[in-house]
């Protein structure tokens, strides 16, 4: 790990160098009234004034629907074509928030805790993350309450902290980060000794994670789930924008003799998610599904995978059509 300084024009030159290296570059772009990661070619396309992108980098790292493998039926036989990791394009994510980058750890925990997930790993290998520490936050942000911070470097290959002069402190964190620096090493100057913390937004913790965890361990039969979930509509917006939600579905796309098996995101909030063919549904009610969402992130994952399933990005609260504010709900559980 090495800390450097990069000035304003240096940032642009370096950015251009990354683009010309042939890698896909995704960055937040403001269009259609929303800020979201999109492929960009020029630094000027990158959005400035915003707190959070609508979707997490999950939407840029993974395809919305991904072919696990494809097949063709020939004379009663089936030929399989495996997923090719090399088909994944080299991707650089620019201006990622630390809470987004922190999502890789829980995602990897889910995908690799037992058998390794070839596809997930292929995407990870091909993705480099240049995060920007956060100088601003809003009422939905709570990374500091879930082991994160506005300057958290977990999951990032490089982290930039923007300085008033338009330059930035560049923390080069990984080998992948070094490779990116190597595309234009001369713009990286020696560290000027600026304290990063000075430029981070001050975000007090809103609840104590251990306390919440202890409460949740005993809360399975609590009435809180029903009370909190009453207005929940049962859509999947929270899960789809979440940087750590990994529930998925496997589906078939067949055309005549050819077909492919497809993986796409799913959501534990959907009523049909756990429905058995027999008609029995273990999580029949919305309150049970809401409980599953919270317990999975804040109790099951910490216990089973040693990682909390929430990075405090606040997207689910912002995306929810009926203001199911996760911070408010967790805080209220902590206070119980």
């Amino acid at each position, binding site marked *: 790990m090495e800390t450097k300084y990069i000035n304003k024009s240096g940032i642009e030159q370096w950015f251009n160098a990354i683009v010309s290296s042939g890698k896909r570059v995704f960055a937040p772009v403001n269009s259609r009234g929303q800020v979201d990661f999109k492929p960009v070619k020029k630094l000027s396309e990158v959005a400035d004034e915003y707190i959070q992108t609508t979707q997490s980098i999950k939407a840029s790292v993974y395809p919305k629907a991904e072919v696990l493998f494809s097949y063709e*039926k020939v004379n*009663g036989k089936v030929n399989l074509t495996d997923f090719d990791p090399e088909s994944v394009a080299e991707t650089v994510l620019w201006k990622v928030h630390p809470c987004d980058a922190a999502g890789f750890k829980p995602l990897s925990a889910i995908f690799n805790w037992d058998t390794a997930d070839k596809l997930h790993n292929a995407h990870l290998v091909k993705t480099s993350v240049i995060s920007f520490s956060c100088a601003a936050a809003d009422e939905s942000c709570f990374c500091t309450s879930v082991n994160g911070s506005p300057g958290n470097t977990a999951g990032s290959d490089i982290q930039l902290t923007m300085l008033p002069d338009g330059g930035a402190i560049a923390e080069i964190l990984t080998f992948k980060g070094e490779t990116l620096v190597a595309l234009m090493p001369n713009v990286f100057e020696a560290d000027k000794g600026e304290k990063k913390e000075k430029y981070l937004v001050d975000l007090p913790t809103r609840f104590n994670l251990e306390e919440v965890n202890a409460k949740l361990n005993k809360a399975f039969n609590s009435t809180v789930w029903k009370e909190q979930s009453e207005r929940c509509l049962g859509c999947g917006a929270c899960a789809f924008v979440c940087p750590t939600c990994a529930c998925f579905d496997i589906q078939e796309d067949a*055309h*005549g*003799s050819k077909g492919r098996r497809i993986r796409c995101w799913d959501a534990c909030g959907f009523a049909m998610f756990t429905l058995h063919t*027999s*008609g*029995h*549904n273990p999580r029949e009610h919305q309150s049970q599904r809401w409980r599953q969402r919270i317990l999975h992130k804040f109790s099951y994952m910490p216990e089973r995978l040693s990682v909390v399933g929430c990075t405090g990005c606040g997207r689910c609260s912002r995306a929810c059509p009926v203001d199911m504010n996760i911070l408010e709900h967790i805080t209220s559980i902590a206070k119980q």
Partner: protein
Amino acid sequence: MSKIGVFICHCGENISATVDVERVAREIGGMEGVAHAIDYKYMCSDPGQTFIKEAVKKYGLDGVVVGACSPRMHEPTFRRACAEAGLNPYLCEMANLREHCSWVHEKSEETTEKAIDLVKMMVEKVKKNKPLDSIKVPVTKRALVIGGGIAGIQASLDIANTGHKVILVERDPSIGGHMSQLSETFPTLDCSQCILTPRMVEVAQHPNIKLYTYAELESLEGFIGNFKAKIRLKAKSVNYSTCTGCGACIQKCPVKKIPSEFNAGLGTRTAIYVPFPQAVPNKPVIDRVNCNYYKRGACKICEKTCQVGSIEWDKEDEIITEEVGAVVLATGFDVKGTDFFPEYGYGQYKDVLTGLQFERLASASGPTFGEIRRPSDGAIPKKIVFIACAGSRDPAKGIPYCSKICCMYTAKHAMLYQHKVHDGESTVFYMDIRAGGKNYEEFVRRAIEEDTVNYVRGRVARVYEKNGKLIVKGVDTLLGGEQVEIEADMVVLATAGVANCGSEQLAQKLHVSYDPYHFFAEAHPKLKPVETNTAGIFLAGACQAPKDIPETVGMASGAAVKVAALFSNDELVREPVVAVVNRLAPPLYSTCVGCFMCETACPYNAIEHEEIKGRDGSLIRTIARVNQGLCQGCGTCVAFCRSKSIDIQGYTNEQVYAEVMSLLND
């Protein structure tokens, strides 16, 4: 569903001349799930069918596709062959290689490829076919006939004579209907009552006919073969089992000035009355609206008169239930009153009559004993004007249709008038003369030529009273629109025939559809004129549209045959091409959420509400259920159901989807 047999027919050379049938069989033989594929000169021939039967057994086929002519031609043939070999007939489908391929294309590669596609499509469909069983519905062999006019009488007699029981319900105290009101009938001028009353008596005496007069249908539930009819027997206030019909009570009844319905308001009747002398049953009822006792609590003269003590003052309406298998609707029609016509004096001129009123005047049993006399002063009219199309064919009056009978009865009226008033002068204003019918045109000609009725083509603009005369102002369009003005003593309006009052409510009770004029709607204007859209309910006579007596009788006999055909088997067997609502194990029960939009879309009222109840009897959900007795299999509900909870057997979503996909995947 994986061992499909495919049989490609050459149809002599009809198919093989343009389609390479060997190639079709060969390529289809290589398809997944096809166990056997051959081609043969004539699949529909005995040896051809034998090939199919043998293959079904030999290869254990679970589906058969015959690529041959149109399924509209030979589908039954091949399905029967499959059934004989032990394969469910609904696992057999046909690909139309002749009408839709070989006959409409030239010999070419493309034609053969299309043939392959057509067969492929049916193979994919058959893979999704399910064995189906014909639907059997038990039939209650009793008919309900509603309406005791000539239509109802004829239908009842015809059904009764086939040996089946009939329940005949009549709203009025007597059967007979409009026909009993008529004087003579066109085109033969025989006396209406003379030909009708024997029939009426036959009804009353027929061992297979149960007659309920003074009764109305309260409700009808159920479906073809299995209806439950609730009938309201209106209180007659007279005990018919003791009443001898002597008529003494009628003589003594002090309320005498009630306009007689039978005489179309031209005569009077008493409060306890028999509508007309030849009534069946010939026993009185008390008209409670007009009876002094019911109105004021005192009188009871009839009771004192009655020797046998048949008056029942406290009798109430009674509701009985009859189980029937079929219903014949014969509720007839009505005519517009003169009050409908502002231009003809709003019905205020006493000597402006409707055709029906004129019938009563001309009738020997009428208020004038058959003499044509003016209601106003009893004088014999010397000049009389008949106005045809009064209301009919007049969109401005809301009656754009032709009432069909007016031309003929107007000619008859004029003729009867001329016969009765030898020095009288009659004029008929008409728009067109519609005399299609056996001896009809000749009849009209006779009126004009022999009876010197003056026919004027034109509309009458106004009729008004002046010095005791009716001034009729009209135009003669044949004379270039010349104004015509006639000072008449009497004017007869051939007022439009309209649906009987209450027909809309009755239709709703029966769930039969009706047209904008409230005439009941037939199932098909050409091919199903006596059926309604509700299976098991048939139409007879003028309740469907205005019609004359022969037509009515013909239709009534037609309806009777339909009923008899239905009753000819203990069970009604139907093609299983019907809709079904999916059912799942609890706790799901069904994916139907009970919005019942299908119910509003179904033309056959085949959608029922099924209540799903828990073990404790509490209502869990209400979902749709298809009554297989009523469903005709159009599938409109299927395309309409948002959650895909209804499907139609034989054309299921999976089947049609597979067909479409097979045409496009390659």
